[in-house]
């Protein structure tokens, strides 16, 4: 008896597909939809600020950012005459933020270097926690501290600066009133942005390639020689980016600056004098008693501030990501 040759059975071919299941399609759809929330929110902010500020922008035209008068008067016929110009506030914002950067950048870079290369491990851990915590302090806390604790001290420093360096234009004052000046607001802002700049710089410094560090030491470099030749060139981009992130924060700071700055609609470069401007604080200051026309102007001011900070942040993120990724 011969064995019947086995019949060849071909199983039906399974269809192979890369098409996701229905559940996955729903999942991906929902996640993708939500991921665009950032885009939606940012565009809505721009849209509504533009819509509500449009009447002012049209009435004031380009003068909205080049004039420095902010007044609204009603004549006998009940007709409103409004002059809104942000120039003094914009320049004031830049001046204050610049002072903040001048103080904060060196301090932050030194702190970051200290944390990365000099501090013993226990100190390092503690300091990093403290600096992270500093970033979480409420901004109104900086305002209170700035007004009641820092201002008396800073007034004394300002007098010293004026006494010894008063012959330089920016340290001169028309009248000897040193409180609530751009100088003091700048110091408060610098304390607020130090944690941002420090943590970005520290991150970049700590990513310095170890082989380059060791190469520098192997060539007989001292620690400072190594830092100057390897770490600083490597981290320069990160420091610039971090500083710009800090600048963005400084531009938009509101209540802390309001507490320590005397807001006056006049362009002032005497930084020790009690007269300054800041767009964000001005919005808060004027909002309380603003009528319909003025609210539109304030919203337009908010739009200008929004665009300004957005641009600074775009640039900062561009610099930071490029440096951190390319490692150069």
């Amino acid at each position, binding site marked *: 008896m011969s064995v019947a040759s086995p019949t060849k059975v071909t199983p039906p071919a399974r269809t192979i597909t890369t098409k996701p299941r229905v559940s996955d399609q729903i999942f991906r759809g929902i996640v993708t939809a*939500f991921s665009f929330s950032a885009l939606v929110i940012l565009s809505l902010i721009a849209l509504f600020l533009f819509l509500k500020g449009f009447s002012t922008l049209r009435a004031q035209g380009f003068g909205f950012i080049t004039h420095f008068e902010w007044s609204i008067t009603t004549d006998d016929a009940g007709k409103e005459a409004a002059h809104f110009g942000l120039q003094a506030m914009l320049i004031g914002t830049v001046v204050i933020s610049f002072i903040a950067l001048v103080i904060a950048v060196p301090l932050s870079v030194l702190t970051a270097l200290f*944390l990365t290369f000099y501090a013993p491990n226990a100190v390092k851990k503690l300091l990093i926690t403290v600096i992270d915590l500093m970033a*979480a302090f*409420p901004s*109104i806390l900086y*305002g209170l501290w700035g007004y009641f604790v820092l201002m008396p001290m800073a007034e004394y420093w300002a007098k010293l600066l004026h006494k010894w360096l008063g012959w330089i234009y920016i340290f001169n004052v028309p009248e000897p009133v040193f409180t609530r000046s751009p100088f003091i607001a700048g110091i408060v802002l610098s304390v607020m942005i130090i944690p941002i700049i420090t943590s970005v710089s520290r991150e970049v410094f700590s990513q310095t390639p170890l082989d380059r560090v060791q190469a520098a030491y192997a060539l007989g470099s001292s620690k*400072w020689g190594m830092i100057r030749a390897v770490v600083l060139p490597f981290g320069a981009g990160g420091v610039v980016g971090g500083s710009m992130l800090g600048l963005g924060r400084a531009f938009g700071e509101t*209540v802390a600056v309001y507490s320590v700055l005397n807001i006056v609609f006049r362009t002032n470069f005497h930084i020790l004098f009690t007269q300054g401007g800041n767009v964000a604080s001005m919005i*808060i200051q004027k909002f309380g008693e603003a009528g319909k026309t003025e609210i539109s102007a*304030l919203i337009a001011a908010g739009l200008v501030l929004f665009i300004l900070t957005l641009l600074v942040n775009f640039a900062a993120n561009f610099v930071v990501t490029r440096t951190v990724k390319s490692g150069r």
Partner: protein
Amino acid sequence: MQSTVKPIRPWAASPRDRALTATSVALSVLASFLVVAVTPMKGKLAYAFVFFIAWLVIDSVLVIRKSGMKGVRDGLAAKITLLGGALVMMAVASILWSVISRGIKGINLAFVTENMRQASLFDPIGKGGILHAIFGTVLLIVIAIIFSVPMGILTALYLTEIKGRAAGLIQFLVQAMSGVPSVVAGLFIYAAIILNTPLRASSFLGGLALTILMVPTVTRTAQEVLNLVPRDLREAGLAMGATQWKTVALVVIPAARSGLITATILGVARIAGETAPLLFTVGTFDSYNFNPVKGENTAIPIIVWRALNGGSPESVQRAWSAILVLLIVVLALFIAARALGTKAMKK
């Protein structure tokens, strides 16, 4: 007899080095006292200034014989970085000390258990409290969490799990969003909702404004945490035949759970003290308002703001005490986030 060679450590400080350091510090202290006594420079600032300069000079002189100019520069750099760190720490210490020492004077039982219905900011301390503001802050935080946590975590999931074509753009926009000034967030809610709809200032609108500020923080932290979940876990899930949805829901998210809670807490710490947006969107109220969508409400930062602008000694005292309460809340959140965060990292 066996002996192991004891490794030498040429970089460690020898007793001689230590003696030199001690000498230079002692000499500089001496110099600072001398200079302050002799010259017209006075005050704490003068002591610190003279001490630091003297320390730099004296130490450089002591080092120059051993290591030359290179050693001097190295020493200078070390001291100046130390100075930078010390200045930053002094600022933090000054802030914490002033809040604690000034705030503690106004803290009493009434301050944390009563509201301001029967009292004003200008009444003597001991009358009226901020419990209603604590409640208002909690309400704002809850509303902000409800909106921002799903938004933030789903955006983070898009960036880590789906990695779609728009990932680069979304990442960019989230970072840009973290730079939106808080006053603009408040102004936006005012312009978009209060000017256009019948809704008026309330906790709900305040929560919406805070959501804008909270989403970027939650997204970025959640993204970092999700990136820490090992790829193996995801691949294991998919290899067992799970769909992507099941893998994410049953493997990735549970693995990252404590990290995601950390992300939420950090977001809350970011917004708990925000003041500017609330001034446009929440208004102010002297007692409890349990209705989130109707009627003005208050929060701790609003109380601080009003008390600070009130100007009288009592109201300023209230501002310090209220900010102390707020700071304790933020600190507690921060410590909780740290504890959970380190637990997540270890796992």
